[in-house]
């Protein structure tokens, strides 16, 4: 028998995370309308009493380009950015990324990444008669 095991700590209040606070706590890169939306800026605040390094430990392959701050000093905030790869721009998805901190317990956070696409009129079919159509 082969098995895989997943571990997570569920949190109910995004404002009570430690040693960092991620804003927004979930990445919604949805697109409503014609204007293409392919990225999201986020902020990570170090609310601990030690400098922290941040590294990406899990990301779906070929979906995103993620820019993370390498180091966040005590009490400071740093910006990051997630950009959807061109090949995924027409897709809707619910994925996630996992980051790991350099604190003693190597704390990890998994952030959901969601994309919904709603373009008014995009699914409407043409009513123009085509040659060969029967009426």
């Amino acid at each position, binding site marked *: 028998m*082969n098995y*895989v095991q997943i*571990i997570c700590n569920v949190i109910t209040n995004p404002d009570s995370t430690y040693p960092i606070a991620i804003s927004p706590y979930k990445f919604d890169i949805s697109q409503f309308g014609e204007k293409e939306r392919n990225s999201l800026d986020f902020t990570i605040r170090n609310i601990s009493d030690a400098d922290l390094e941040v590294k990406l430990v899990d990301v779906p392959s070929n979906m995103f380009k993620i820019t993370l701050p390498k180091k966040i000093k005590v009490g400071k905030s740093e910006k990051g950015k997630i950009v959807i790869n061109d090949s995924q721009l027409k897709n809707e998805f619910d994925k996630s990324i996992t980051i790991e901190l350099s604190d003693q317990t190597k704390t990890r956070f998994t952030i959901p990444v969601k994309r919904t696409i709603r373009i008014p009129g995009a699914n409407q079919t043409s009513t123009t008669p085509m040659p060969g159509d029967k009426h």
Partner: protein
Amino acid sequence: MKRLTPLALLAVFLFALSGQLAAQPKITLPDVVFDFGYVMQNAKISHTFWLYSTGTDSLKIEKVTPG
């Protein structure tokens, strides 16, 4: 007849060995544990576990059981 005995033994040995070497599927999982760390309640999250077919026959996954 005595000369055939070692050959017969060899044949039996090879026959047994061929059974051992018969094509067999095998699965290899390099990573079997993943720690998501802190996750917001009701969040949809995902992780990919890679399964490698490392045997000598095709690998069929017939059942996956959660829990």
